[in-house]
């Protein structure tokens, strides 16, 4: 380390302080931030990941300790895990796809001129402000044939043979929470995409119109490329959120019937807090984390390839 002794001006002090100033000093300034991040983010993450290599079960505290990869071996052989993974894909991409397309459509509608546009823009945002717990309860009731209209309507248009609760049907149950999630998530896409739409200069559309573009060509060749950065980032964020988003499913179906709506995050939740098996729950969570990492890397790579502006 540097020692500060009295040296003549212009003496060798310059060389020693070079080491101090460029190699050590910057990190001292960064230390508080690094410590804070380590404390609130890295430390819990590492502890969580380390649980996945241990046996941590509150019902069998005597059997604690390192377990190597045995949790992962169990995971690989766990039929429920693979089912939950499949459900996670349906849940996530079903929700994101409809949230995105409906949100984009809504944003395009809200971007046109009509009387009362500001009121509508405010109203559209409303579902996003409703607590998810309430959203889940309302939709659970809507699907209940005793008090909700949806089964009767679905039966009336022929989608259901008779008005029963689809949340009790293993074939259809997952679409209950997905519907609630679509209702809940459309405003997010509508608002963010509307903001992006409004930033497109109107002259570009005029220029395209003069160049001979039809409305559809303007949309595909100007609107979509302009929205692409926003689409990439919002779809990525929403996918990660929704994959981790257990509230709606937990309240509406609690993963049932027969695990037909069990997704990885609800599986983590039930394993940790119902079976109190924290070790195995961490293993599932690490698997989910890994999958989301791969997904995010994929989206970012696609973004770099296609987004030019």
């Amino acid at each position, binding site marked *: 380390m540097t020692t500060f002794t009295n040296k003549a001006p212009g003496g060798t002090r310059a060389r020693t302080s070079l080491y101090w100033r460029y190699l050590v000093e910057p990190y001292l300034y960064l230390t508080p931030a690094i410590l804070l991040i380590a404390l609130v983010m890295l430390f819990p993450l590492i502890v969580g990941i380390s649980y996945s290599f241990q046996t941590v079960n509150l019902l069998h505290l005597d059997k604690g300790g390192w377990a190597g990869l045995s949790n992962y071996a169990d995971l690989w052989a766990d039929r429920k895990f693979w089912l939950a993974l499949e459900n996670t894909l349906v849940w996530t991409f079903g929700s994101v796809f409809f949230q995105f397309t409906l949100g984009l459509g809504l944003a395009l509608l809200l971007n046109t001129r009509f009387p009362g546009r500001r009121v509508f823009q405010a109203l559209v945002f409303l579902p996003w402000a409703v607590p998810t717990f309430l959203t889940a309860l309302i939709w659970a009731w809507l699907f209940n044939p005793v008090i909700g209209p949806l089964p009767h309507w679905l039966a009336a248009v022929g989608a259901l043979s008779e008005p029963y609760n689809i949340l009790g049907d293993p074939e259809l149950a997952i679409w209950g929470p997905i519907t609630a999630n679509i209702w809940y998530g459309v405003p997010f896409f509508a608002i963010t995409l509307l903001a992006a739409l409004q930033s497109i*200069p109107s*002259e570009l559309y005029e220029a*395209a*119109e003069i160049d*001979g*573009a039809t409305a559809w*060509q303007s949309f595909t060749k100007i609107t979509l490329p302009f929205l692409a950065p926003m689409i990439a980032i919002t779809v990525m964020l929403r996918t990660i959120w929704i994959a981790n988003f257990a509230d709606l499913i937990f309240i509406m179906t609690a993963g049932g019937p027969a695990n037909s709506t069990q997704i990885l995050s609800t599986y983590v939740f039930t394993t940790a807090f119902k079976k109190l098996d924290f070790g195995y729950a961490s293993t599932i969570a690490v698997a989910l984390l890994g999958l989301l990492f791969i997904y995010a890397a994929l989206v970012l790579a696609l973004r770099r390839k296609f987004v030019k502006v």
Partner: protein
Amino acid sequence: MARLELRDIGKSYGTMEVLRDINLSVADGEFIVLVGPSGCGKSTLLRMIAGLEPITHGELLIDGRRMNDAAPRDRDIAMVFQSYALYPHMDVARNMGFSMEIRGARAEERRSKVAAAAKTLGLDVLTERLPKALSGGQRQRVAMGRAIVRDPQAFLFDEPLSNLDAALRVEMRLEIARLHHRLGATMVYVTHDQVEALTLADRIVVMNGGIVQQVGTPLELYDTPANRFVAQFIGSPTMNVLPASREGGDVRLSNGALISLEGLEGPVAELGIRPEHLDLADPDNATFTGSADVVEHLGSDTNIYAQIDGIGPLMVRQHGHVALRAGDRLGIVVQPERVHAFDATGARINS
């Protein structure tokens, strides 16, 4: 190429009328400049020709066909915007070839046409750049290239040079003049800059307050302006306008000077004299006497801002050097055949 015909065109937003009684016929291959102060409706008129603004009154004909309700893409015109409106996510070549891409033209045809246009505009080394990596002048060229590749019936320009610096503006002005000469296309050009109007136009349309003030060749507008607005708008420095009254066949100014004019009709309210149509003279024999307020020596010309006894400020432009300094006494004579008389409404009344 195409003839444009505007018949009794008008435009109103609700009850507010912004354009009225526009009648204009543009011959095939003609270069028409719409000029006027900002807010006079010239850009609105251009956008109505392009189809970007609905026409609320009158008829627009392109090559004899009524185009009032045709979409912009069906009018077969190209437009260069003030902001250029280049597509920022496409490179120069794709920007220029966009109209062909839209029409589904074959890639090699598109490439050769874009390459040809890029070459004439000096853009051939830049075709792979995005607009953000171009300078203002280069963007301007790309916007023009896009119009050329479009190969339209008519070109519309909406103040295309107003975002460029002075030197570049002169250069691009020449470029546009060359382009018109080479393509022989019908062009309608909007500007508030009278120099652009005078240098580029076959005919100029001077507009003010949503009404056409005068249509004519640059020299017609300069020599015989229809009214006081055109007289003061066209020509630099601005024409002097002095209060005057009619006395028989002559005009009396407020300093007592009498100027005889030919072909006067009706009462005279004002007299307009361009600074370059005044000459310095011996104060004893002059129409105006006074003193020089400010003298600007421009080398080729000398601008003298004089304070005239009994009249007030008057500007004189003399060719070459004049050995005159601020505060000197001077006399000024008028070239009577170049004087314009206006009545109380501002209309020109001498022949």
